[in-house]
C-alpha cells in the first residue's frame, strides 16, 4: 500500500471549526413535557417549534420500540437518560491522558490523530478549543459569498424559521418510527445546510468543523436542502473512536434534493464499540432519509461503519422525481461483540428512477451483522432499475453474517437485480500473500481493503484513506 501517502493524510491537521456555546445547566434524567419545554427554551426556540416537539412526544408515547431487527440488547430505560446535559462534569472526566484507556490511545496513535486532539477525543477535561477564529471566518465568508447556509440546527430554527417550517419533518415525519419520534421531541443539536438554486457548494462541508461539539451529539438532527441544480458534499463523523458517556444515540438526517440537485452524504462512524466483553459501547439508532423530489435529482449515501456496540441504520432514498437517482455504498465492519443491522431502502416512485446498492459486510470475532434492504418499485415507476450487490466476508467461526433483502416490485417494466455472496478469506489467498513475505495480518487487511474497494472509491479522498486505516485497526486481532 502507498503507506507514506496514507500516513501523511491521516496525520494531517484537522480543519478546525466553530465552538458551540457551553451551556452550564443540565436537567435530571427523565422525560416529560417539562423537559421538552426546557430544551426548547434553552435553545431559544419559537412557540411553534415547542408545539412540534410536544406533538412528536405525544406520538412517541404511543409507540413501541421495534423488535424486528437482528439485534440483541437489554431494554433501554428512557427515564434514566438525561435529555439535556451540558458537556459532562469535568470531575468525572479523566484528568490527563494517563488516565485514559491505553488501548484507546494506541488506536489514536495508529490512526495518526494529532496529540492535542487525542485528549479531546478521549474526553480529557482540558480547555481544548481547536477553533481558530480566522479559519471559521474564512470558511464562513466563502460559504456566505456562494449563498450557502451552514449552521447548527438551533441557529437555523432561530434565523431561518421559514425554511425549517417548510422542510423539517417532511422527509422523516415526526412519528416515522420510534427513534425518529424520540429525536423529534428532544433533539438538541445537528446541522443545517441550505444550498440555493444553481450553486455548487465551494467546499466539502464537514462535521469536523464542530469536533468539540461531539459531546452533545446524542440526539442529532440534520437537515440538508439542495435547491434546483445545486450540489453539496457533506461529510459526517470521525475516524477516531470517541469516548462518550451517552449510550443511546438516535439521530435523524433529512435530505431534500430538488430538480437536478445532487447531494453526496458520506459518513464514517466509529463510536465506542464497548470493551472486549461487550460492556459499554454506543447504541446507534439512526434514521436517515433522502427525498429526491425533483426530476433528475440524485442522492448518494456512502458510509463506513466500524464503531458502536449496536447499529440500527438504513439510509434511504425516496425517488419521487422523474429520472432521479439513489445510491448507497456501505462498508460495515464488526468485531468483538458488536452487532449491526444496517442497509438501505430505495423507494422508486417516479418514472425512470435508478438506484444502486453496494453493501460490503465484514464480520469478525463474536460479532453479528445483518444487511436489511428494501427495494420497492411503485406502479408508476416505469422503467425503474435497481442493482444490488451485497457481499459478506466472515473472519473466524464465531461470527454471523445475514442478508435480508426485501423486494416489492409492482411495475412490469422495472429491472431489479440482487446479488449476494458470503465467503471467507481464502486460505490459498493468505498463503499466496504470506509467501511473498507479507504478514498474515497485513494480508488480511489487504484482502479486506480489496473487498471494500467498490465502496471506498465512492468516498471523498481524505475519508477513503482514513477508512482503510480504520478498517485495519478495527480488525486487529481478528485473525490468528
Amino acid at each position, binding site marked *: 500500500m502507498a503507506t507514506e501517502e496514507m500516513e501523511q493524510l491521516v496525520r494531517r491537521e484537522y480543519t478546525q471549526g466553530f465552538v458551540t456555546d457551553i451551556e452550564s445547566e443540565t436537567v435530571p434524567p427523565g422525560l416529560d413535557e417539562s423537559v421538552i419545554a426546557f430544551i426548547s427554551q434553552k435553545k431559544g426556540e419559537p412557540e411553534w417549534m415547542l408545539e412540534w416537539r410536544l406533538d412528536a412526544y405525544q406520538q412517541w408515547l404511543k409507540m413501541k420500540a421495534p423488535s424486528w431487527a437482528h439485534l440483541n440488547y437489554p431494554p433501554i430505560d428512557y427515564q434514566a437518560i438525561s435529555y439535556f446535559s451540558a458537556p459532562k462534569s469535568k470531575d468525572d472526566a479523566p484528568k490527563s491522558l494517563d488516565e485514559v484507556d491505553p488501548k484507546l490511545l494506541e488506536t489514536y496513535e495508529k490512526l495518526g490523530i494529532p496529540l492535542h486532539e487525542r485528549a479531546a477525543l478521549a474526553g480529557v477535561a482540558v480547555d481544548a478549543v481547536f477553533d481558530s477564529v480566522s479559519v471559521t471566518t474564512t470558511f464562513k465568508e466563502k460559504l456566505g459569498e456562494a449563498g450557502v447556509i451552514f449552521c447548527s440546527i438551533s441557529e437555523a430554527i432561530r434565523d431561518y424559521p421559514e425554511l425549517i417550517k417548510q422542510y423539517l419533518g417532511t422527509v422523516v415525519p415526526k412519528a416515522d418510527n420510534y427513534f425518529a419520534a424520540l429525536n423529534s421531541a428532544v433533539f438538541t443539536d445537528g446541522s443545517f445546510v441550505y444550498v440555493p438554486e444553481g450553486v455548487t457548494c465551494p467546499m466539502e462541508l464537514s462535521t469536523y468543523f464542530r469536533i468539540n461539539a461531539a459531546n452533545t451529539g446524542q440526539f442529532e438532527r440534520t437537515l440538508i436542502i439542495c435547491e434546483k441544480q445545486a450540489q453539496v458534499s457533506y461529510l459526517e463523523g470521525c475516524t477516531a473512536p470517541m469516548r462518550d458517556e451517552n449510550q443511546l444515540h438516535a439521530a435523524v438526517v433529512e435530505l431534500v434534493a430538488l430538480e437536478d440537485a445532487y447531494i453526496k452524504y458520506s459518513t464514517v462512524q466509529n463510536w465506542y464499540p464497548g470493551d472486549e466483553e461487550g460492556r459499554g459501547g454506543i447504541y446507534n439508532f439512526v434514521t436517515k432519509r433522502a427525498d429526491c423530489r425533483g426530476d433528475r435529482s440524485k442522492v448518494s449515501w456512502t458510509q463506513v461503519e466500524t464503531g458502536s456496540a449496536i447499529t440500527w441504520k438504513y439510509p434511504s432514498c425516496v425517488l419521487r422525481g422523474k429520472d432521479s437517482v439513489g445510491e448507497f455504498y456501505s462498508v460495515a465492519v464488526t468485531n468483538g461483540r458488536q452487532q449491526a443491522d444496517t442497509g438501505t431502502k430505495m423507494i422508486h416512485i417516479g418514472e425512470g428512477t435508478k438506484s444502486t446498492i453496494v453493501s460490503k459486510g465484514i464480520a469478525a470475532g463474536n460479532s453479528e451483522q445483518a444487511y436489511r434492504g428494501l427495494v420497492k418499485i411503485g406502479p408508476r415507476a416505469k422503467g425503474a432499475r435497481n442493482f444490488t450487490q451485497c457481499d459478506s466476508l466472515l473472519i473466524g467461526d464465531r461470527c454471523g453474517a445475514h*442478508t435480508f433483502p426485501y423486494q416489492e416490485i409492482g411495475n412490469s417494466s422495472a429491472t431489479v437485480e440482487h446479488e449476494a455472496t458470503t465467503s471467507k478469506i481464502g486460505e490459498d489467498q493468505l498463503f499466496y500473500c504470506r509467501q511473498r513475505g507479507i504478514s498474515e495480518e497485513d494480508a488480511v487487511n489487504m484482502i479486506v481493503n480489496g473487498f471494500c474497494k467498490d465502496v471506498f472509491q465512492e468516498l471523498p479522498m481524505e475519508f477513503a484513506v482514513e477508512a482503510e486505516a480504520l478498517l485495519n485497526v478495527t480488525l486487529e486481532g481478528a485473525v490468528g
Partner: protein
Amino acid sequence: MSGAQTFLNRLEERVSERQAASLPEPTWIVARRQAAAARFEALGFPTRRDEAWKYTDVRRIGEGDFALARDAAFSKAAAAALTLPIEAIRLTFVDGLFSAELSDLSALPSGASVEPLSQALADNHEAVGGALGRLTGVEFSPFSALNTAFTEEGAVIRLAPGTVVELPIVLQFLSRANDAAVMSHPRVLVQAGARSQATVVEHYVGEADAANFTNVVGEILLERGAILNHYKLQEAPLGDFHIASLHVDQGRDSRFTSFNINLGGALVRNDLVSDLNAQGAEASYLGLFFAQGRQHVDNHTLVNHNAPTTFSNENYKGILGDRARGVFNGKVIVKRDSQKIEAYQSNANLLLSDRAEIDAKPELEIYADDVKCSHGTTTGQLDEKAVFALRTRGINEQTARGLLTLAFAGEVMEQVTVDAIAERVERTVAGKLPERFNLTELVDASLNEVHDTGLGEE
C-alpha cells in the same frame, strides 16, 4: 363470531359426529387434536403483521365457512380427464376423502407401502404415531395447528431400506364444485429407508368452478443415502384456497429434489423446509409459479444446514400477469460449526403486466465461516436482444415474446424427469399466456408431433 371460532365449531361438530358414529380413534390422536385446537384458538389466523405473512393476507380464508366433505363421489370420466396420463401407483382423494375407486396400487413393488392414512391408522396406529408430527407440530404456523386438529386422512408412504420404486407414486387431490365450499386437511407422510429411491407426485386439481380450502401438511424422512424426487403440481381450480407446508428431514448422503409447480388456486401459500442433518445431505429446490387474474401465490422456502458438508441449490421462477401477486421468500441458515457448506439460491421473475406485483426476499443467515453461499434475484422483462433475434427469423413480436416467456419457465422445467408433468405444464403455461402471444396452437402442435413421431418414447 370470530373467524377462528367458525373453524373450531366445525371441529367440534366433527368430533361429536365421530363419537356418535362410534368411530374409534387412538388416544394420541385425540390428545394431539385437543392440543392443536387449543393452540389454534390461541393463535388465530396469521395477519400481515406477522413477518412470515407480511405479503399474504389470509382473511378470505379466515372469514370463510367451510364444511367437511361427506363423500368421495366423483365421476370416473371426469376424474380421468384431470388425472396425469401416466402409469403410476396412485392414491386419489376427493375433497380430502379417500377414493378407493379412483386409486390404483396394483403396480406397487415389494418393500414399498402406499396407503391412505385412515388405513394405516387402522392397521397399526402406533407405527404411524411415531413418525407423524415428528418434523412439524402445531408451532410452525396456525395452519399447521389447524391441520393437526383436523387430521383424519392423507397418504402414508413407507419404503423399506434399498427399495427402488420405478413408477411414480401419485397422490391426487381432487377438488369438487360443491354447493357449499368444503375444506380438507390432508397429511402426507413419507418414510424413505436407507438407499431407497422413489418419485412422489402431489397433484392438486379439480373442477373449474370449485372454491374449496385445502390445508395440507407433509413430512418426509430420508434415511442414509435415500433419494427422493418430489413433485408438487398444483393446478387447483381458480377459486380454491391452498395452504401447504412440507418438512423434510435429511440423513447422511440423502438427496432430495423438490419441483414445486404452482399454476392454480386463488390464494396459495407453500412452505418448504429442509433440515440437512448429516454430512453429504443435498437438497435441490426447483420452483415455477405462474399467476394471473387476481391469483396470489406465496412460496416460502427454508434450508437449514445443520451439519457440515451439506449442499443446497435453489432455483425459482415466477411469471405474473394481470393483477396477480407473487411472493418468494427463500431462506438459508447455516448453523454454527456447519463448515464446508455450499448453498446457492436464485430467483427470477417476469412481470407481464403493470398491475402485477412480486415481493421477493432471499435471505441468508450464516454463522460459520467456511461457506460458499450466494443468492441472486432478478425481476425484469424479456431480453430485448432475444426478442429482436427471433424477429429477424421472421417470427412476429408477440409470438417471440410468448416463446421467450415459455423458455423462461423452461429453465426449471427442463429438469423435470416425468414427461407427463413437463408436457402438462408446458401446455398450461402456453395456454395461460395472453392470447396475443398465440402460442397454444404452436405448443400443442409441436407436442403432438413429438407423440406422433414417437420422439417422446423412451
